[in-house]
Structure formats: structure tokens, C-alpha cells
């Protein structure tokens, strides 16, 4: 399963983590990240375990970065320009650094036919950091919030604005309608949000140099939640680049440009959200002939006994948002359910989505499965006051070109130890549940992985 060298490096990293833990005095963090600094409070007011939100944090987010039940933007954000100092600025700025210090890939077969040479190899390597995010957010005035998130993927080139938007809150009356304009995460408010995962996204690796609108093999499958993934083999963006079946997309893309409205007009138990997007996320591409539209509703129970639960459903209608290899446009839609229940230290969540291509182009008729599904079930639980254990199960029933598609099932385990509420070290393993099924495609070839690193939010 693991090579001798891998075992040595993994043991070494666990040892280093233990030493690091003993050197750094564990303590409850007080008011570290930007919002906690602004309100002089504790990270855990809003999070079950950063970055996952608890019920209070969720309502804070919905209210445009204002405390639930208030419209406090003006009272905390208004200051003459000349009176601003660093203490004021740090109430709006934060960063997150997350990355693996060591990672290990284990494949059934090294460099199988079709894979890039030197990429698919059993290897353990040191690598740090992975992702650096800088964000500025808060309230510009009463009921006017903003968020800008600049991400730098260290292995990639340059930095880019992941999200940047303005919110106009409590339009009409309190909690009736909150408007977001800009580039935002469409799935920020459902029971299982896209970007707030304990498991950092591990993208797939696609073979380099594939010609446009031709099948393109994968060196390695991605380890994103299957319910959020593209799921289809044989879809292309408008430039002809093959879309990764493992990349988060559509309602779950994490960042799309458009406008949406959400609110709780009937009380705390019901949330609605509707939106219109360009649907041109860089992750998935889009011929963008028309706008994509979506709607989501969420039912909540959050009253007492340290218990909360919610269930959500959404519909995302794409409009010419992908192409097939014959260059023809398709309308790619997604329908999904998600649910979450939190009781004291236990947080359980799940999402199921069905992706459908409504009308198969004649050029690929009979060759293309128009339906794909993804299921993700996860749980986080504190086993001590500072240690969080996370589990995730993913099953992707792939659709798309019949001669390419390959379903996947993975189980992921992670132990995250919070040195402070905003600083954690983690060790993670992902295991392919279908590795015994044979074949040398990427979906079968990756057997397991190991990652160990640090997650700092300041």
C-alpha cells in the first residue's frame, strides 16, 4: 500500500506535528480573524470548526456580515478617513494559508498508457504552501457589505480574484431580501456549502497537450465532493478544453458572476434564494449565449438543546453552458438536495445532486449518457476540545461519453488538531473504494493518498 520511504516520511511528519503541538501552547483563540477582531469575540461564535459555520455564523453571512437580527454596519464601520488606523484596517483584512507540508500519492500502475510521463508515480514529496488567500470584507455602511477574496495557488501562476461582491441587505424590511452583486459563491447558503470544507480541494490532473474537442485522459482523479463535481466525461468549454468531471461546477462552482437575492421573509425556518449568473466560471467554461438561473430553498430547525438541522433543495438551469465533441452546445442542468444536522460536537451533512443534459446533440446521440449523479456524505466531530476528526464518503456515477466515463468512490479521513481556534495541523488520507475493480484508468489507478500540513486563518 505505502512504500517504505512513504511510511518513513509519513511517520516523520506525524512526529514533527507532535513536536510542533507540544511546543506551541494550546489556548483558546480570542478574536483573531477579521470579523472576530471587529466584534472582539471568539472564532467559535460563528464556526463549528473553521471554516465551517454554525447557525450563528450562517445568519451573520446571510445578513451581509452584520450580526444576526441587527443592521449594525453603520455603527461599527463608520469613521472619518483621517481617523483610521491599523486597528481599524485589521478588522477588515484577513488571510488563510492552507497547504500540505508532505503529500503522498500511491498508484496501482505507474505511468499507464495515455498518462503524462513522470506524473503518475508512487511518490512522497515535501511541498508547502498550497493555497494563500487574502480577503477583505465587512460593512461599508449600514446594510451595505462587501467581500473580496484574492487567491494564489502556489503551484499555479499568479493570483486571481476568486470572489468579489457587494451586498445590499435587509431591503424592504429586516431579512426580507438581501442582494448580492458581483462574483460570489452561489452555494453559500444551502445546508452544505461549497467552499467551507474541512477537506481542502484536491484537483484532478489532466493530460497535457490534448487537442481541442478531443478526448483527454486524466493522470489522476480529483478529490472534490462528488455532489459538487461536473460528473460528465466528454464535455468541453467553448475553447474546446475538456472539462474535468471532478471539478466543482454550476451551483457548486464556488465563484460565479451575477446577481442573486436571498431572505427569510416568513421567519427563521425558511430561506429562499434566486439568482442569475453569466455561468462563465473559469472552472467549467461556457459558451455564454444565455444566462444561467437558479433557485434554492432551505428549511431550518434551530431552537435549543445545542441542536440544529436543515434541509435544502436547488435547481440550476444552464443555458448553452457546455459543448460536446461535435462542437454543439448543450444545456447542462443540476438538481440537488442537501441536509445537515449539528448536535454538540457532532456535525453530519450530505448532498446529492443529479446532473442532466436535457437534449443530447445528434452528433453524439447513442454515445452519451445524459444523466450523472453525485453523492457526498460527511461528518465532523470533536474527539477532544481541540481535535476534530472528519470523514467523507463520495460516490460519483459518471455520465457523458460512454467510452470514457468511469465512476468513482472514495472515502476520506482527516484528523485536524487546532493549536488555536485559527491554527490547525492536519493529517489526511483518501482511499479508492473501487481499486479492486481493475482497469488502468485514472479512476481506478489512484489507490490512496496522504496529506499532512497546516491551516492558518488570521
Amino acid at each position: 500500500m505505502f512504500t517504505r520511504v512513504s511510511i518513513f516520511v509519513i511517520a516523520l511528519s506525524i512526529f514533527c506535528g507532535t513536536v510542533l503541538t507540544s511546543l506551541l501552547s494550546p489556548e483558546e483563540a480570542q478574536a483573531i480573524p477579521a470579523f472576530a477582531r471587529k466584534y472582539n469575540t471568539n472564532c467559535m461564535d460563528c464556526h463549528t470548526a473553521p471554516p465551517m459555520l454554525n447557525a450563528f455564523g450562517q445568519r451573520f453571512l446571510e445578513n451581509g456580515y452584520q450580526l444576526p437580527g441587527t443592521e449594525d454596519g453603520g455603527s461599527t464601520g463608520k469613521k472619518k478617513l483621517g481617523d483610521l488606523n491599523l486597528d481599524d484596517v485589521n478588522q477588515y483584512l484577513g488571510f488563510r494559508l492552507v497547504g500540505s507540508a508532505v503529500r503522498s500519492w500511491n498508484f496501482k500502475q505507474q505511468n499507464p498508457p495515455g498518462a503524462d510521463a513522470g506524473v503518475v508515480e508512487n511518490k512522497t514529496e515535501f511541498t508547502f504552501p498550497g493555497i494563500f488567500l487574502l480577503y477583505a470584507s465587512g460593512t461599508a455602511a449600514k446594510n451595505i457589505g462587501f467581500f473580496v477574496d484574492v487567491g494564489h495557488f502556489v503551484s499555479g501562476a499568479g493570483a486571481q480574484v476568486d470572489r468579489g461582491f457587494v451586498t445590499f441587505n435587509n431591503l424592504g424590511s429586516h431579512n426580507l431580501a438581501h442582494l448580492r452583486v458581483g462574483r460570489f459563491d452561489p452555494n453559500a447558503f444551502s445546508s452544505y456549502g461549497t467552499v467551507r470544507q474541512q477537506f481542502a480541494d484536491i484537483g484532478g490532473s489532466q493530460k497535457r497537450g490534448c487537442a481541442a474537442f478531443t478526448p483527454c485522459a486524466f493522470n489522476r482523479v480529483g478529490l472534490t465532493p462528488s455532489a459538487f463535481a461536473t460528473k460528465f466525461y466528454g464535455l468541453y468549454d467553448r475553447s474546446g478544453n475538456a472539462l474535468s468531471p471532478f471539478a466543482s461546477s454550476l451551483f457548486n462552482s464556488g465563484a460565479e458572476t451575477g446577481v442573486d437575492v436571498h431572505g427569510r421573509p416568513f421567519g427563521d425556518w425558511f430561506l429562499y434564494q434566486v439568482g442569475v449568473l453569466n455561468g462563465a466560471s473559469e472552472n467549467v467554461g461556457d459558451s455564454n449565449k444565455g444566462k444561467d438561473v437558479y433557485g434554492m430553498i432551505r428549511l431550518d430547525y434551530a431552537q435549543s438543546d445545542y441542536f440544529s438541522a436543515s434541509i435544502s433543495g436547488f435547481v440550476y438551469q444552464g443555458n448553452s453552458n457546455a459543448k460536446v465533441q461535435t462542437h454543439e452546445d448543450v444545456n447542462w442542468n443540476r438538481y440537488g438536495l442537501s441536509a445537515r444536522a449539528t448536535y454538540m460536537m457532532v456535525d453530519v451533512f450530505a448532498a446529492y445532486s443529479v446532473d442532466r443534459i436535457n437534449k443530447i446533440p445528434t452528433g453524439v446521440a447513442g454515445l452519451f449518457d445524459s444523466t450523472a449523479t453525485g453523492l457526498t456524505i460527511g461528518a465532523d466531530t470533536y474527539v477532544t476540545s481541540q481535535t476534530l476528526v472528519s470523514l467523507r464518503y463520495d460516490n460519483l456515477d459518471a455520465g457523458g461519453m460512454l467510452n470514457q466515463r468511469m465512476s468513482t468512490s472514495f472515502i476520506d479521513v482527516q484528523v485536524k488538531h487546532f493549536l488555536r481556534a485559527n491554527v490547525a495541523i492536519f493529517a489526511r488520507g483518501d482511499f479508492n473504494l473501487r481499486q479492486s475493480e481493475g482497469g488502468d484508468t485514472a479512476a481506478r489507478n489512484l489507490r490512496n493518498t496522504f496529506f499532512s500540513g497546516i491551516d492558518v486563518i488570521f
Partner: protein
Amino acid sequence: MRIRTIVAIGAGLALLSVASFAQAVKPEDNQATRAKGKQVYERACLLCHGVNGKGDGPAGWFLGRYEGPRPRNFIGGSYKFRSTPSGELPLDQDLFRTVTQGIPGNMPSYGGLSEEERWQVIAYIKSFNHSFKGAKPTALPLPNPPGPPSDAGIENGRKTYIKYGCQKCHGDNGYGDGKEALDGNLKDTYGLMVSPGDLTERASLKNGSSAQALYRSIMTGLDGTPMPSYADTIGGNDKDVWDLVYYILSLSQERP
């Protein structure tokens, strides 16, 4: 034309999102006030304090995970932040101060609620605890601080600090690292571990860090925690109390 339209839409949205600031005096504590307070409570307080005020809201558990303090149980819990003697209920003004200022490190300031809304929600919070009915809690005297502290006074405060055993919890230098804290002996009435205040970090002091606020904390104690009231001991000697207050304040100035 397009720019004008966008500007007009933007201005409209900004106008819509601006609400009036309500400046109100304390409303009468009656059924109507409590009903309005209930609405505010359900919007702003329920998620931590729970629908029945037991402090068991869906977000309440995470505040300290396995440590205190958890959100206040309004039904029977003792109130930490009072200007009344230990064991007594707080004044309305005490509750108003806590709602308005928040509790550093634990509860954000709800100054974003209008003054009227804050009084309304206090009326509703009091309805959870029948002891408030007809109760007329009385504040301990809270004198104005004497003139500027002298070196001799601060030295006397240091001796008072040691004489009354403050260092056992707060540590020799006020860092909150006294032996009782390090040994894990400090627990609240729910059996959850609590940390003593770091006296060198004024912003972290939960009951306020002004000279008067420190005087109040020493005299009233923080009920439900290991911090006792010293009204019956040091309280008879006002000079010693103020010297102790100034010594505590000097700790945060001396921090490297």
C-alpha cells in the same frame, strides 16, 4: 444612459438599505414591550441562548467547546455582570450594559440594535426568570475614582493583591496564569473549566476595564465563577480597593 440607470439603481438600493436610528427612552416593562422583545430575541439572541433562554441555542455549544463560559442560562443561572451584591439579580442597567458592550472574547456588542430594541429584549429576557417579578435589586455604591494614582498607592495595591490571594488565579504578574488556573481547578457552576482574566490585557476583561468597572468587579464578584465578591473583606477599606484597582491597571501599562 446605461450609467445613469446603474447610478439610479444603486442610489435606490442604498436608500432602501438605510433605516432610521431609533432614539428611545426605556419603555415600560409590559406585555407589549415583552412581545416586541421576543421578536428581537428570536432574531438576535436565540441562536446562542436558545428558544427557552436556557443558554442551549444551536450555536451555543461551540463557544467554549468543552470549556466555559457557555451562553447565559436566563432561567436560573446566576448573573456575572452586576452592580448589585453577590447572589442578587442584576439591575436592568447591568443587562443593558452587557447587551450594548458585549462580553470581550465571547459575546459581540449588540449596539447595532436600537436603544429601544435593547430595552425591549431585556424585558423579554427577564420574563424567563420569575425571580425578576417584583424584585428590586439595589446597586452597591460605586464611587468615583479618587485622584491620580501615586507610586505608594500602587505599591499598596500590589500588597493588597497578594494579601487577598489574587495571584492564586491571576498569577504573580496578572497574566491569568496562577497556580489554581494552571492546575485546572477553576470551574464555573456548570463544572466547565474557566480561565481567569488576563489583567495585563485590558481589552479582554469581560466586565469592563475602566477603574470603576474594576472596582465593581472586585466588590460584586462574578457570580457563577470562582471570582468571589470582596465586598465583605476588602470592601471596608475603600483606599485599599482603589489602590488595588490602580495596581491592576498598572499591570497592563507595564507589559513589555
